[in-house]
């Protein structure tokens, strides 16, 4: 569904839901990402360190999990819009091996200048909220 471009910016209404996004924090993939950014924080690579810090396992870095929030929006809006702002709060850790479930809904639509506000919630498979975000979208 990458960049389908089938969503028309003008036709979007408050309350519209975006397609859900699920992603598993696969160990091999995540460690490759750590390598890509040369992540030095042991919280994101060392289980013993993470447990000493009070976590139950390696915590997946916010810089990685962040990726999936604008991705979900861009997959939906395609070339019709662009992400202009994101405010994100990390409420609970996302652990290696865990699966995130992202849901999102349009909460505000402005006409002058045209923009949309979208609330995104990221939960684990048990429904616990892990993070939330507000995304501002403008026409491309």
């Amino acid at each position, binding site marked *: 569904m990458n960049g389908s471009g089938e969503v028309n910016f003008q036709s979007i209404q408050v309350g519209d839901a975006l397609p859900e996004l699920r992603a598993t924090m696969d160990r091999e993939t995540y460690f490759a*990402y750590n390598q890509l950014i040369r992540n030095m924080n042991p919280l994101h690579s060392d289980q013993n360190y993470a447990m000493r810090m009070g976590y139950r396992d390696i915590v997946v870095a916010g810089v990685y999990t962040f990726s999936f929030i604008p991705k979900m929006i861009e997959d939906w809006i395609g070339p019709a819009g662009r*992400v*202009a702002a994101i405010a994100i709060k*990390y409420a609970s850790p996302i652990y290696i091996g865990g699966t995130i479930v992202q849901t999102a809904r349009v909460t505000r639509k402005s006409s002058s200048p045209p923009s949309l506000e979208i609330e995104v919630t990221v939960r684990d498979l048990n429904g616990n909220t892990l993070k939330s975000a507000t995304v501002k979208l403008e026409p491309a």
Partner: protein
Amino acid sequence: MMGGEEAISGERFQKELEALVAETGALELRVDHDALREYCRLTGHDYAACKARDRLPAGYLMTFIDPIVTRIMVAFFVKFPGTIKGVVHSSSRIEIFKPLTISARPYREEMRLANLERKSGKKGDYFVADFEVILLDADGERAATDLHQFFLKTAVRG
């Protein structure tokens, strides 16, 4: 340089942190196609589509500007080995002022310490530190900003 399990005062910690950020300076950032392709593979983005549209995915921003953040993280652990017990990313406020393009001339990033507050919680003392990363385009105009908030768990006195 401080070492061991040294506890420092809040005032001194702030000064040390500000000095550390100042030392970090600015970095030039070029879009590395191999890195972008790998990022897309690891996050499920469509690299070919990004390239065809000449757009960096918005999700790549935090990864793209990460070098200056990593540099400061390394400095934390080198300069404050016994003082910084842990670093937790708690929030981010991102603004993207213009489309970020793959073909752009090199960007530049800078960082500043926007705010520092000392807090106490169940697990002990910590600081809430707001670091603003500013991404400038080749004309020196702001392309994006990211106000990162970190919890710095510390051994701090006074």
